[in-house]
């Protein structure tokens, strides 16, 4: 299974096994990674599954889709590498992916 590493704002790292076909958000939730709320359950409608993609991975992962982009815009702390993790599907290409978690979800 591909491995994904979530880094909390305070630096704590969580490396988890992610199931192919599920979303990165689900991988975090299934493994009890703190710092992702996912209030809408993955419908791209709450923006509380915000992550920042590690610089080495932005090319592989790509940017947000249109709906995701408009939700991300609701966050003043949005960065250039921001994504909503419920809109990222786990695949073998993402094995080793590293994402940073924001200090707060909003």
């Amino acid at each position, binding site marked *: 299974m591909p491995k994904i590493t979530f880094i909390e704002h305070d630096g704590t790292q969580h490396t988890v096994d992610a199931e192919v076909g599920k979303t990165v958000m689900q991988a975090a939730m299934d493994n009890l990674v703190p710092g992702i709320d996912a209030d*809408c359950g993955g419908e791209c409608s709450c923006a509380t599954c915000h992550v920042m993609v590690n610089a080495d991975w932005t090319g592989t992962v790509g940017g947000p889709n249109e709906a995701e982009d408009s939700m991300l815009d609701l966050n003043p702390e949005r960065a250039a590498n921001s994504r909503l993790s419920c809109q990222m599907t786990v695949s073998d290409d993402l094995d080793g992916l590293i994402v940073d978690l924001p200090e707060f*979800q909003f």
Partner: protein
Amino acid sequence: MSEAPTLDMADFDPQDLALEDIDVSQRSIWIHDKKMAFFERLRDEAPVHYCKDSEYGPYWSVTRYKDIMEIDGNWQDFSSEPAITILEPEEDFPLPMFIAMDPPVHDEQRKTVQGSVAPANLKLMEETIRSRTQRVLDDLPIGEQFDWVDRVSIELTTQMLATLFDFPFEDRRKLTRWSDVATADEESGIVESEEARQAELYECLEYFTRLWHEREEQGERSDLVSMLAQGEATKNMTPQEYLGNLILLIVGGNDTTRNSMTGGVWALNQNPGEYAKLRNNPGVIPNMVSEIIRWQTPLAHMRRIANKDYVLDGQTIKAGDKVIMWYLSGNRDERSIDRPNEFIIDRDKARQHLSFGFGVHRCMGNRLAEMQLRILWEEVQKRFHMVEVIGEPKLVPSNFVHGYTEMQVVLHPH
């Protein structure tokens, strides 16, 4: 055919009515607290339900959690303009506000102010809010009956708004009044007439215009008036737009949080087992706050207008139709929420509720509201064994603001 007399829903068991005769917007079922049974029938038998005639004209009711999520998340097909409640706006007194605008203008205006209630800024406000909360609680009488709505819920939300606007503290009850007036209609008893209502709202505008001029020149500040006065997307607003956005922030932050503060006490009183859980484990408070907000659902609905024909659960909503998303019903939908009628403070996935809406209009103040409620409960638990409700609270007679006008309580210290 002569016009049939309107049925008073409150006289009926929902099961005894033909589906097509049901009108969940009727005030009587809200006044007599009978709406939940009507919503249950709609969820089971007509989750996308057309009411062909009501006080507000024809409208669709959407009552299931998943369907509400689908519509709320789809601003392209469901417009928030020109208003977000079932009631039609006053044509001669428009109050433009970004909650009732579609992208892109909505986004531009929201971006100007949302930083004020984003978590980083809230962290700076937390200590002020906590010390004010402590003061309000410390002044309450012990063992003596009083109105929790007035002494705690209104007082705390009003103080919070005064902090957000950096509003003269001694005048803060004006904010409460303006919030009540803004959502009043002639039947509410709050104002005598529509003219009186507008006159008071102009007073609000005048007061805030003074603050605007003072702050325009004062350099960067993080209060909401300064943000509006200095923001690129908002600094050239017309007076009516300024008033609209002020009212949005005042009403948005006021009734909702106020009624969650009251609703939480009421829910715990009706569920002594949950109250005991809270006493044994104050760590549950953040989770309980979400459960209170779900259980209360301070705004019972939001409305949209369909931009095109749209099929949902086999029904065709026509372009131009009014669609009401009943959050209060969706939050009781057993298809999406486990044991939805129960109040469970350590509920799994408690954050997954509809009370803040979803999509681009999702409540801007949701983290502020949660923080306020968390602080309130942390401080209440430090002081009191029980906030005991005496009798039953009085309900706001509205199908939009789902809350309380009065709730008598007695405090029991540890």
